[in-house]
């Protein structure tokens, strides 16, 4: 997987929702960058990513828009960053905080690889 550093600004460009005030969290962006870099390097089993992604598609349809963003085709780094920000409760959404809290770093890597290749 390509190593790219991601910032909240990049997540914004990628169209992922960024919570108000998130930019002010000192150090948060640096943490995200470190996390994205580390998780991007993890080996992934595509079959595992396929399976793990199946609960996501109940809400994130390929044509999703509005209330829930489509995540298919998003850059892997943006997906990793977003999941990290839900895990670390920078981002607000209660469903996604719950989802992310149950994911290991290997899970995040597998999901990012899966959705970025959709």
């Amino acid at each position, binding site marked *: 997987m390509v190593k790219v550093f991601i910032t909240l600004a990049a997540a914004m460009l990628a169209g992922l929702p960024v919570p108000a005030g998130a930019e002010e969290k000192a150090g948060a962006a640096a943490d995200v960058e470190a996390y994205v870099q580390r998780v991007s390097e993890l080996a992934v089993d595509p079959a*595992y990513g396929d399976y793990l992604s199946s609960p996501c598609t*109940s*809400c994130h349809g390929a044509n999703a*828009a509005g*209330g829930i963003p489509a995540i298919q085709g998003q850059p892997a780094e943006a997906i990793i960053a977003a999941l990290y920000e839900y895990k670390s409760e920078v981002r607000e959404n209660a*469903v996604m905080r*719950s*989802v992310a809290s149950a994911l290991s770093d290997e899970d995040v890597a597998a999901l990012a690889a899966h959705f970025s290749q959709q």
Partner: protein
Amino acid sequence: MTLIKDRRGAGPLLTRRTFGLLAGAGAATLALPSYLRAQDKPRVVVIGGGAGGATAARYLAKDSDGALDVTLINNTETYTTCFFSNIYLGGYRDLQSITHGYDALVSQYGINKVTGTAVAIDRDAKTVRLEDGTDIAYDRLVVAPGIDIIYDSIAGYSEEAAETAPHAWKGGPQTEILKTRLDALEDGQNIVMVTPPNPYRCPPGPYERVSMMAHVLKAKGYTQSKIFVLDPKETFSKQALFQEGWETHYPGMVEWYGPDVIGEIAGVDVAAGAVETGFDTFEGALLNIIPAQRAGAIAVEADLVNETGFCPIDAASMKSSADENIYVIGDASIAGDMPKSGFSANSQAKVAAMSIRAELTGSSAFPARYANTCWSLIETDDGVKVGAQYEPAEGKITATSTFVSQPGETAELRKETYEESVVWYDSMIADTFGITA
């Protein structure tokens, strides 16, 4: 050769036992539906084409790339979702928008759709008997029939009485009856709702329905009508949120009574429009009676249920505790901490499909993960949600992290929550039926 004519005229069907004879019949074989043709592929049959069964069929077909022969049996041509039926009741959607067909599952995923009712499962022969006498053989069977209403759990109620006093707890005609009767109410006429005891389909469903009925009355400017909610349970799902919402949006309209006030629900008199309780008799121009529930009849008939009326399963795979070739998903299953919801059924279907593929095609099996979110609408743009992630633990499906909307949230957050539910519905339908809703 025994040819059994399909009563619906969808072409000749025949029992698998006769297949050996037909194999030599040349051109005749080509005319057969694919599920009766030569099989070296493992066969998976799914009973029930709802939130659970249709998802299971789609994932089995999609992820096995043609290595499995998948047959989906549903008793109707189209499926009207119970999820969002309250939104329909509230006037935000029409019935068409919550009714879906199976065409994409057939044309895009190669699934054999059989329209018919499964009446028996021969667990030794591994065949499903349809009401017209056809037998369909399986290597693995997914049982996803949803719930059946236990009519006689409320004295005076019956399937016939439900034509006048609908339960509307199964999608389709019942929902339409409730909508028609709701829309016909005049100011000052009351609604009496009897809610079901646990466990039942969609824990927040009755209370979302109360909200949507109140919305309709309020939108018409009614000030005299009341909704009496008679509950056999002391507490209910998202109670603080619903009660706050009723006070805010529908002051004085909704009166909820638990068993500490009303005692037992002694019975209903549908003709008189009356529900008798240990405390008082409640009268209404519209009765919405939602009785106790159990797993769909086919699960009972096949002896897959325990004393609770629902089907015990292995939390790691959704496999029936009663039969190693059968999986039970959705409302019919005993899914531990998971509520009986469309989202849960959809999630369980994916675990079952993965497990079945691993057994039949040797694909990888991964640790089961489940998820659920139930959104409810209280008033226009006032959405709330509850949900969790789940894993097998302690011999059941166990919640690992949960969340629920909080009283007093901002209008902006409530609107966002409602907007999530709208996207969820469309995504869920695409995920289940392979179509864009």
